[in-house]
């Protein structure tokens, strides 16, 4: 399928470029709905790869690229499940999202994440699965998982380690702070920063550039330069599930859900 209009995302191809637009309100939280449509996208990749050279992923949501995992959905599931079933359910979810992101990471297309606004948690992990991240100067990047007693579970740590020095990896993980686009550029995570509102234009210009090159040669160069850290990705799922089994996570999610309900927290601040 070379084009698709879903509830949470859409894609289309034109002139050698594929574009995947995320549009799941409010901030492309990655839960069941978005995951199912990402899986459909992954299934369509072979066809897109035969027709395009580049893929640009972007968000139509004002809040940003993606705020990460759908914590309210996760909390809601936990409320109605015993711990063992919850861990099994979460492992199943992680394996599915890993399959999608690994397929994206390994695609023969040159993949570009055009990021604006919040690029947090699972959203950051989606961006890191791409070959290039181009960021609006107001974009912010964050791994807030420790706030919930967790680590990034969608492959964020192994992928961040590919791009950034270990000191920054530790900083982001252990403080849970967000960094701006300029810092992300200086750290090597982001390849270009644009003026406000210009990220889509610049990302499309970059995608147009990569369509000029021989597809097979580009794919070979990409696979030589960027390895999939398969073993670490599997290990991350195991560590995440071990942490998820702890009571602290259930409590943290309950506290988060209550605070969201009463609007008593600032969810994007630590």
């Amino acid at each position: 399928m070379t084009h698709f209009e879903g509830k949470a995302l859409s894609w289309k191809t034109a002139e050698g470029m594929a574009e995947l637009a995320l549009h799941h309100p409010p901030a492309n939280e990655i839960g069941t709905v978005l995951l199912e449509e990402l899986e459909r996208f992954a299934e369509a990749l072979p066809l897109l790869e035969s027709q395009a050279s580049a893929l640009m992923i972007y968000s139509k949501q004002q809040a940003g690229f993606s705020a990460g995992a759908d914590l309210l959905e996760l909390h809601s599931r936990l409320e109605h499940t015993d711990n063992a079933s919850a861990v099994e359910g979460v492992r199943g979810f992680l394996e599915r999202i890993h399959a999608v992101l690994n397929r994206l990471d390994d695609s023969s297309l040159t993949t570009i994440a055009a990021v604006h606004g919040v690029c947090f948690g699972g959203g950051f992990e989606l961006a890191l699965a791409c070959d290039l991240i181009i960021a609006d100067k107001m974009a912010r990047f964050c791994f807030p998982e420790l706030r919930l007693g967790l680590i990034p579970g969608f492959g964020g740590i192994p992928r961040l380690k590919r791009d950034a020095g270990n000191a920054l990896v530790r900083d982001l993980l252990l403080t849970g702070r967000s960094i701006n686009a300029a810092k992300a550029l200086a750290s090597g995570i982001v390849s270009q920063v644009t003026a406000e509102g210009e990220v889509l234009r610049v990302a499309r210009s970059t995608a147009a550039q990569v369509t000029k090159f021989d597809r097979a040669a580009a794919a070979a160069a990409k696979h030589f330069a960027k390895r999939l850290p398969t073993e670490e990705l599997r290990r991350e799922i195991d560590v995440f599930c071990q942490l998820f089994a702890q009571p602290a996570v259930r409590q943290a999610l309950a506290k988060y859900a209550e605070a969201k309900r009463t609007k008593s927290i600032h969810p994007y601040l630590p």
Partner: protein
Amino acid sequence: MKDLEQTTEEILNLAAAHFHVPRKSLQAGDDFYEKLKIDSLQALELLSRLENHFGVELPDYEVQGVSDFRTLASRIQARL
């Protein structure tokens, strides 16, 4: 180097301009969430603008619990 008053003034000017609020309606002791009518997402945007404007990096945990312009200015001042 700027002093705290200058830094505060620049923050008030920047906030007024970006969030389309009359500058004269903002005072250093005001709660910026209330005065600017912003949520945490827009607070992050304000943080990014301030980082870019002052050329500093201000971890968001440094503004945890901060809601007035003057204290925000002191956090930035500490990075200049």
